């Protein structure tokens, strides 16, 4: 464990996410040097600094492509992305869409508090329409992103929702994501105790229904699609959809057939290959 003390507000949902991720990694038997946590920008994205793992804090919205590059270069590392709803669904929305259809072996934990917190309370892509914030005094003008449905539509092969109010359950979800061979989205309801007075722990707790208990079959895409439409009086949590059929992106990259990039010497090109390359141009 790192000696760094989190700068999060007391009661922040990020504490539970940190605890759940740690527990999941330990239970999966992963050592600190085998795991890289790549984060975006914001309160929650400071998370890798509070763990003893390889960490890479990137830019607002950019952790997915950084993590993808790392995973392609180092398929031997387990790569976990941690970012917020602004990162994942807003500024990094394009990367998210393409990561869903690309299916690299990444676990993506989105700390979704339905608000911009570190910049002090502006509306985010998941803020409910009509919510008053400092940048939407008349109410948030847009309809919120539905992360579950969008990920399903974009071809994600593992789509789940967790709740920071239930760290044990969350750890279970993260473990399932870690065992998935491709891209695994875990959208995490994460109350912001300072700037979001609507979507509180109690607000979520009253609404949560467990997909597992409701007899949902995660291999059934149509059922997942139907359940993904629910968000309001009832909020389903658990694994919406999981398909193990699709190979991870890195399993399909021709350039990796010779092995992980970093294990090969820089001067491995032999004379015959070099001469042949030049001959192509004669």
């Amino acid at each position: 464990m790192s000696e760094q003390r989190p700068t999060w507000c007391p009661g922040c949902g990020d504490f539970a996410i940190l605890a759940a991720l740690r527990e999941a990694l330990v239970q999966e038997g992963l050592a600190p040097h085998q795991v890289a946590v790549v984060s975006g920008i914001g309160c929650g994205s400071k998370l890798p600094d509070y763990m003893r793992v390889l960490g890479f804090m990137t830019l607002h919205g950019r952790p997915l492509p950084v993590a993808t590059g790392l995973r392609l270069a180092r398929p031997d590392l387990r790569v976990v992305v941690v970012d917020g709803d602004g990162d994942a669904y807003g500024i990094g929305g394009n990367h998210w869409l393409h990561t869903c259809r690309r299916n690299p072996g990444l676990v993506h934990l989105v700390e979704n508090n339905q608000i911009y917190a570190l910049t002090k309370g502006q509306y985010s892509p998941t803020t409910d329409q009509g919510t008053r914030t400092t940048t939407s005094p008349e109410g948030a003008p847009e309809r919120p992103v539905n992360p579950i449905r969008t990920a399903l539509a974009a071809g994600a092969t593992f789509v789940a929702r967790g709740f920071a109010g239930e760290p044990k359950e969350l750890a279970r979800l993260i473990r399932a994501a870690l065992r998935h061979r491709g891209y695994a989205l875990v959208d995490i309801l994460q109350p912001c105790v300072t700037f979001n007075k609507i979507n509180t722990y109690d607000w979520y707790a009253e609404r949560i229904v467990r997909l597992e208990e409701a007899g949902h079959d995660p291999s059934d895409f149509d059922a997942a699609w139907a359940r993904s439409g629910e968000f309001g009086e009832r909020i389903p949590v658990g694994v919406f959809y999981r398909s193990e059929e699709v190979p991870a992106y890195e399993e399909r990259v021709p350039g990796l057939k010779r092995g992980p990039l970093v294990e090969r010497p820089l001067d491995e090109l032999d004379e015959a290959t070099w001469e042949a390359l030049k001959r192509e141009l004669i």
Partner: protein
Amino acid sequence: MGEGWATLSAGDGKPGRKAEEQDVSLVIGGDAGQGVESSGAGFSTALARAGYHVFSIADYRSRIRGGHNFYQIRAATRPVASHLDPPALLLALTAESVELHLENLADGAAVVYDRSFRLDAAAVERAGRLPVPVPMNEIALRHGSKVMMNTAALAAAAGLLRFPLERMEEVVRQNFARKGERVVEANLAVAREAYAEMLRHPAAERFRYRLPGREGQPERMLLHGNHALCLGALAAGCRFVAAYPMTPATTILEWMTAHAEPLGIVTKHAEDELAAVCMAIGAGFGGARAMCSTSGGGFSLMTEALGLAGMTETPVVVVDVQRGGPSTGLPTRTEQGDLLFVLHASQGEFPRFVLAPGDHVEAFEAAMRAFNLAEKYQVPVILLSDQFLASSLRTLEPERLRRDAVPPERGKTRRPGEPPLPEERRDGDYLRFAFTADGISPRVLPGDPDAVYGVPSDEHDEAGHITEEIANRRRMMEKRMRKLETALAAGEMRGPRRLGPEEAEVTLLAWGSTLGPAAEALELLARAGVRANLLHWCDLWPFAGEAAERELRRVRRGVVVEQNYTGQFRRFLRMMTGYEAEGLVRRYDGRPLEPGEIARGVLREVGAGVR
């Protein structure tokens, strides 16, 4: 163009100063989609195989079909590093290309065109050119279809130049091989007939330019600047390339991807440039030698991540193949408009390296050096090329691309399993960002059980933890920036390369791809009686100031030559050395500077004072 300056035309004295010397330019003009580029590349290949030194450029618009395109090929019996105006032969695939090029041809130049074009041959004659109508279309139709008109045109031009038919046949065979034997045979028949037709042509006798086959010449590669850059990157151990297609950088991603599987390179066509640079940074963090390639507009998008690489001290190579800007500007054309931008791109201050190779060989070596610099100094390195260098095709002896010219060096980088470096630990902990005298912290690649660390994009301490503490910020800034001094002290950055005589009346000051045309301008100036030399910079940042000042002290009259409006390099030189160049020869219309144009410009700038 002033009275006397006409004698400075590079075309002057053709075909060759000495009887045995040849230096001929030809141009193929037609509509986009007519195969102008493939014909030009084919003729270039045939000329290279026949023993000529070749330098070719394509001039095309940003569209897929329609609009006038042309391809200019220079073939010479000595090495050439620039295109040459004016051409001695125009191969016109449309009547429009005759109208567009007629004025710019050399005296006595031939205009080869299809007999069916509605063209006033007498007007061509009056312009001092030789009209050479050929039934290209008819010949093509006789053997199959009019799509073979290109073959007829190439063979006709070959016939007129007395260029060996066999060389043209080889290229025809190669180009059509994948379409099957029947197509190959039909095209060969077309070529033979058009060639024979030209040997009998009444105009042929009056044409004085000749390109006979040259036996006994060594084999030469024919490659464009992006090829050379790719080969250098490969030789340096580059194993990861991410990019979003953008002219004129696209061929880098394409070439690397075509060789990805056999050579084990991961290439990624990313969703945008933001993703491309971030992927390269992720791969670089993982320990792979990683690169992303783009043009100015894409580089603009990458700038935020450039700072990320600077702050996290992640090695990455970023290629900016400049084109005409701003905005989407002139997508298929050349400019050196990004210099001052790349030197400062991204917010805040962090060390970076900028190399702007001048020609194909330098592009190859700069690519190799870029990866070494990126890893040794743990910084982003920018390779600043441009459309002219990236897309011009030239011949090179294969041995000039020596992959042992720059052996891979990783500096203080340790792979998992390798023994620890002495500086690595402090109080038993691995400090990724340890304060060191040279500014470079020993780097252990991810995956080592003894070195688990984080790299924040926020300011951080030696261990990589986020902090805003004052003393740490100072020391960390100083540590990072110290890398530049370390590199300069280690002699990593080169001063200007001098071409031409040591003592000169006029010195041309250039950077990047204007090297070839500027070097040739020296010869033209010499012929006009002006003793000129050239200082050319490839290494721009960190700037080897002492070496520059040493050379600049000897300059009597200096003229900066560059491809932008504001004279960015002239300003840069003033900023770095206090040296104020007397003159500036610039071009900013997207077309590459020509040797004759440079020579005339230099005389215009300092003309009264020389001779």
